[in-house]
């Protein structure tokens, strides 16, 4: 790693030539990804150019398409930011999916069961969602800090506890009698739904997610807290000897990443589904791990990665529907893109 990457206090030395080369390598990676992706479309019996055209029109071609893209990107972005922060401190939270569901349950219950003015309820729901996700994740943090339980395993397993707990509560106590035995709660009152943005067919929750980018960036790059997180990630023992309470920091990182996942869950409930059901997450908690790593654990990087993954998801669906291509091809193309981005990234770093 170079000083420019890891330096915190001193600005990195700019290297224009290296930047140009990085750009070139990335562009080559994208071109290659389209070529290989096109080949896959051909194999599946489709027409590559038409397929990619519908991929773009399905994500960027209309207000509706852009809205769809942003709504999909929002949870990935929120969760990815939290995970990037935790991963920086070498706290490997793999439990964001469960934290999302627990947060959704906490926030959704508040919106469903408490009365009061809509905006206040929404705010309360968000606070409850953050608290729910944070508390759920803190259990993992405390286990690691106090008893040295590996957080990868405990957070992964707590996913199932969280998801099935959500299923139970949503099916039974909060269930919608009209929906039979389906996995869905009663419908939220209209006033507790997030308003949508005119002409964009997207809820205002995307602003929450976008607003989190500079906040997390600031916390990571400018504050002593961010510095300590980085220190712990690079050398936990030296960090402890330097007087940082690393056990506390581990719990804090779990809580922050869990809180953001919980917030994403609430936004899915009050912004997209309008009730608590299984549709609030398309494995966002797991995909966000890819987002965080693809974004190289930086806030702007996570923003770019969330948009890329959302583009591939939403665009891939459009491609499949418009061209009658099997969805498995879409998944394969997504994989190809991510792979090429990673390869390009590797080469770009080597060029520096």
């Amino acid at each position, binding site marked *: 790693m170079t000083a420019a990457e*890891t330096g915190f*206090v001193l600005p990195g030395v700019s290297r224009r030539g290296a930047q140009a080369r990085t750009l070139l390598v990335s562009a080559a990676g994208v071109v290659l990804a389209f070529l290989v992706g096109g080949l896959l479309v051909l194999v599946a019996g489709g027409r590559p150019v038409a397929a990619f055209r519908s991929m773009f029109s399905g994500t960027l071609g209309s207000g509706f398409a852009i809205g769809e893209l942003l709504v999909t990107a929002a949870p990935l972005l929120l969760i990815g930011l939290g995970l990037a922060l935790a991963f920086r401190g070498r706290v490997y939270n793999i439990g964001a999916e469960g934290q999302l569901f627990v947060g959704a349950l906490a926030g959704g219950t508040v919106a469903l069961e408490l009365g009061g003015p809509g905006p206040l309820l929404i705010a309360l729901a968000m606070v409850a969602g953050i608290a729910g996700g944070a508390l759920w994740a803190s259990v993992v943090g405390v286990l690691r800090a106090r008893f040295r339980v590996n957080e990868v395993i405990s957070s992964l397993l707590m996913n199932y506890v969280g998801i099935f707990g959500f299923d139970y509560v949503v099916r039974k106590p909060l269930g919608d009698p009209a929906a039979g035995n389906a996995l869905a709660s009663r419908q939220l009152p209209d006033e507790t739904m997030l308003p949508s943005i005119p002409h964009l067919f997207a809820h205002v929750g995307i602003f929450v997610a976008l607003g989190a980018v500079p906040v997390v960036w600031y916390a990571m790059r400018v*504050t002593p807290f961010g510095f300590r997180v980085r*220190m712990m990630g690079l050398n936990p023992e030296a960090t402890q000897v330097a007087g940082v309470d690393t056990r506390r920091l581990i719990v804090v990182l779990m809580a922050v990443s869990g809180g953001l996942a919980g917030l994403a869950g609430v936004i899915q409930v009050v912004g997209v589904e309008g009730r608590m059901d299984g549709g609030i997450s398309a494995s966002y908690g797991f995909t966000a791990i890819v987002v965080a790593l693809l974004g190289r654990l930086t806030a702007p990087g996570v923003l770019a990665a969330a948009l890329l993954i959302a583009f591939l998801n939403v665009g891939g669906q459009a491609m499949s529907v418009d061209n009658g291509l099997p969805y498995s091809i879409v998944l394969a193309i997504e994989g190809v893109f991510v792979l090429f981005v990673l390869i390009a990234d590797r080469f770009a770093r080597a060029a520096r």
Partner: protein
Amino acid sequence: MKPPVVAMRGIVKRFEGVTALDGVDFELRGGEIHGLLGENGAGKTTLMNVLYGLQEPEAGTIEVDGRPVRLRSSQDAIAHGIGMVHQHFMLVPTLTVAENMLLGERGGLLVRRRRLRAAAERIRERAERYGLEVNPDARVWQLSVGEQQRVEILRALYRDARVLILDEPTASLTPPETEQLLPRLRALADEGAAIVFITHHLEEVLAWTDRITVLRHGKLVETVRPQETSAVALARSMVGRDVTLKELGVEVSTADETGHAPTSDAPLLAVRGLECRGDLGVTALHGVEFALYGGEIVAIAGVEGNGQAELEEVLCGLRPPTAGTVAIAGRDVTHEPTAARLARGLGIVPSDRYRRGVIRALPVAENLVFDRIGELPFGTPFRVRRKAVASRARELVDRFSIRVSRLDQLAGTLSGGNAQRIVLARALSRGVRLLLAAQPTRGLDVGGMEFVWARLDEARRAGVGILLVSTDLDEVMALADRCCVLYRGRIVASWSRRELDRERIGLAMGGVVEAPGRPAGAGEVLTRR
């Protein structure tokens, strides 16, 4: 007369400019136990690594049974009948004893049941013959340290080793385990094997070896028979004559006859009845007690592996003690985290500077202030003040003559001496009252050593109480106002500056403590075999 089994002549080995072995001759005959003595860094292990093919010498020859050989890998060495048991065992914990034996053999990965059974049979037979009982089907992680060592020895014998190198075999053993091991080595030698026995424990060497070779600073000092020498003479050969600071050209004038009088009335550091466990669960410290006042340097001398590392960790708050108390400036901090200890005025110079002292992937500037990054003037809870950090870093780089090309150079690119200057600069610039300096000059060249000693002396004069944990006798002699020796987890001796004597410290480090009033030489063996 039969040629010696092994004859090494004029062996030279250098590591990045440091000469680890400087023309060493070493000879080994069948049927003998050959003791290899020397301080840490004297070259014992390097010499044996050369013999075991792990390191190739720059010059010198090796003969096995009178024929010159070239040992390029441990495979070569094994083929010539040379086996080595390292200080840190090289066994796979999840495999069984028999499986571990087959590892490294051709086709060893594809272990078939039949081969395993045959191996187990052979192991049982050898184990019985040499009295090294061990169950071939037991998994290694289930075995005690002593049993694991038997497995290592058996593995060498299983490969028909006639030369057996044991690197500090008794260092990690409990006294009863040591008592079991040594007679078995004798029995092996009586069957014709040649055994190299590396150790720091003088009485073990005197009692159990046929010849003793002493190395110092990579050179051969002497090869003697135990009957011709004594613990005192061996200690003298090991540590050499006094190298005073003056000879190194350092003007720190610490060599006052009486040492420095403490400048505080109450102790800055008081340790009482301290006990703790080591990584393997064995008690590593037994009832350690001492007090440290301001303005003095108290040295904890001793050979590595006798509890220094654990003492350092307990004092830093990294390892919980099982009994006893630690008080800093009058307050009990036994159960408080590192941060609370630092707030009481503790400064830490860790023995492993790359693991605990610097963060290699961070720039020099950040390494110089990372323990105070959230405090004024370096930052508020919301913002790190880059300018304040950079200007303090610049100041410290000047004051401590740290050789860096730029402040954003990564600490990992610095030499050991410069990295240590960073650690020292950071520790001493935060207003410490009490400094824990663990092996502060390990691996440094003379210039770096000189610099560290001068800074420690300066801090002492400013009233800082310094606990110097050191394996280096020169360092202890140069700096200590008082000295304690840690041996097998106990403080076995302590002296004031006036009573300091190289030989006595050297003896105590080897476990031999003179009773007061008796003439030197009439040593009392501290631990019975």
